[in-house]
């Protein structure tokens, strides 16, 4: 062990800080099995009643289905729009290319509370408030910048000479893309698909401005529930959410190595 930072006291401090960082996530697991009707920690007894309550709660289950559907549609459209854009930005030169790249990633710089309000102000005129297409478009604006960025990085690590070789051997451009470029970009593609899905599924602030009585997403329902009631129901929902997120990450990790795809 090197230098100043290996004393027992310092290790204890770091351990305590990690405990602080992970405490709010770890605490929901025991609470979700509580038998109390209010938030009491540690719980006075154990049961599965809150998991039952979760499956019987119609509002939450409906919102869960909406969120799942929404995340799936957003993922597909994000890739459909982001991948061609990244390809055009990396494989062609034209005036205004850098400006366009900046414009496409600019929504990341805007706070979501401001972006949410801005979208509300335009969608109210387009009659997109409280509609599924409205939610899709609003989510696209936060997922596509990541897709464009990850795919651009994936494309710039892929030497154009490979594509040129295929072209010289007589393959038409579309075939080159499908048979050469796309398979080589698979890690980036999977990573951006997973990220787009998770971002859309977790998005709450922008959705708050667009959802209404007619349609709502799971994070918005959770937010509204937590704001008005305090019981362990949301702990059960949280455990399911964390488990689902973990499953997606592990799936990606098994297929390509998450950290590898992100760092590249």
């Amino acid at each position: 062990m090197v230098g100043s930072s290996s004393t027992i006291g310092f290790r204890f401090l770091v351990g305590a800080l990690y405990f602080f960082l992970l405490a709010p996530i770890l605490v929901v697991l025991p609470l979700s099995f509580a038998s109390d009707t209010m938030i009491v920690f540690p719980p006075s007894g154990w049961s599965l009643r809150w998991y039952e309550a979760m499956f019987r709660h119609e509002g939450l289950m409906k919102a869960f289905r909406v969120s799942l559907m929404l995340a799936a549609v957003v993922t597909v459209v994000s890739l459909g729009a982001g991948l061609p854009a990244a390809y055009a930005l990396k494989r062609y030169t034209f005036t205004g290319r850098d400006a366009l790249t900046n414009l496409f990633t600019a929504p990341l710089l805007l706070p979501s509370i401001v972006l949410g309000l801005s979208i509300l102000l335009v969608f109210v005129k387009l009659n997109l408030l409280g509609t599924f297409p409205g939610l899709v478009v609003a989510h696209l604006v936060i997922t596509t910048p990541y897709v464009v960025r990850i795919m651009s990085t994936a494309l710039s690590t892929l030497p154009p000479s490979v594509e040129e070789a295929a072209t010289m051997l007589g393959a038409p451009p579309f075939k080159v893309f499908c048979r050469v470029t796309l398979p080589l970009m698979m890690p980036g593609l999977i990573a951006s698909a997973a990220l787009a899905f998770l971002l859309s599924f977790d998005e709450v602030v922008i959705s708050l401005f667009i959802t209404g009585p007619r349609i709502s997403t799971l994070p918005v329902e959770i937010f509204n529930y937590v704001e008005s009631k305090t019981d362990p129901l949301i702990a059960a929902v949280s455990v399911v959410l964390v488990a689902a997120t973990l499953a997606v990450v592990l799936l990606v990790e098994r297929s390509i190595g998450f950290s590898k795809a992100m760092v590249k």
Partner: protein
Amino acid sequence: MSLVLPLPVGRRFARLQTLRLPLALLVPMALINLIAFVLPVARLVQISFLEGHGGVLTDTATIANYLGFLTDSYYLGLIGNSIMLAAIVTVTTLIAAYPIAMFLHTVSPRWRNVLFVITISPLLVSAVVRTYGWMILLGDQGLVNDALIGLGLISEPVRLINNTLGVVVGLVEVLMPYMALSLIAGFGRLDPALEEAAASLGASRIRRFIRVTLPLTAPGIALGSLLCFVLSISSFVTPKLLGGGRVFLLATEIYDQAVVQLEWPMAATTSVVVLVLFGCALVFYTRLVRRFD
């Protein structure tokens, strides 16, 4: 005109032909960007200069919203609250994340990878869930109050949420991974040999930290602080839930004005003020970083 047309028409046409594919590839992305980013932001700025109440807007251009904002002590108080809270959160997050980054710098690579993943893993958990976790921990019947009563330090539960304290604790935890990421990047520039050299020349542990470690990791500190400051000024979920309607900030005001009171022009004006604060933080950061190099 002849000056801007150096190519013969035929070749110009050919060039247009070769550009048609990339243009077509860019269209879907450009449309999304236009409908959900460019137009909304333009509309936001426009509405901040319009009159209107209750979701109805008139076409009269006015600067009354800004004048009202900047002369009303309530709104000025919101700016003060937000900046103050963001500053407290930023400093606390820095103090909380620095030891973690420092520890990661010294452990063996295998441990470093494991701890790195643990450090950023909270980013995958929704802020709503993590805030809910703090409501469990800090509530009147929560773990912290229980422990304090059990230790005999207090006899009745202390209020730890529905006030600024709760918001600070929640935000520090939510933003810690961002700060840690920036600091870890900053520590990458620090060669352990420099610390060893300082030690072998007889510098005390504290002196080594102040004269070697701290200055060399300053760029990471600056980046992390900018990120935390900007993210806490615009954070909404954590202050709304842990503040319990008793903590008044710019972000919560934007939401209330827009969704509850339908005062869109004022919500837009408040948003523009937040963006101006963002700009100020960015300018300050750029000036600061220029000094490091």
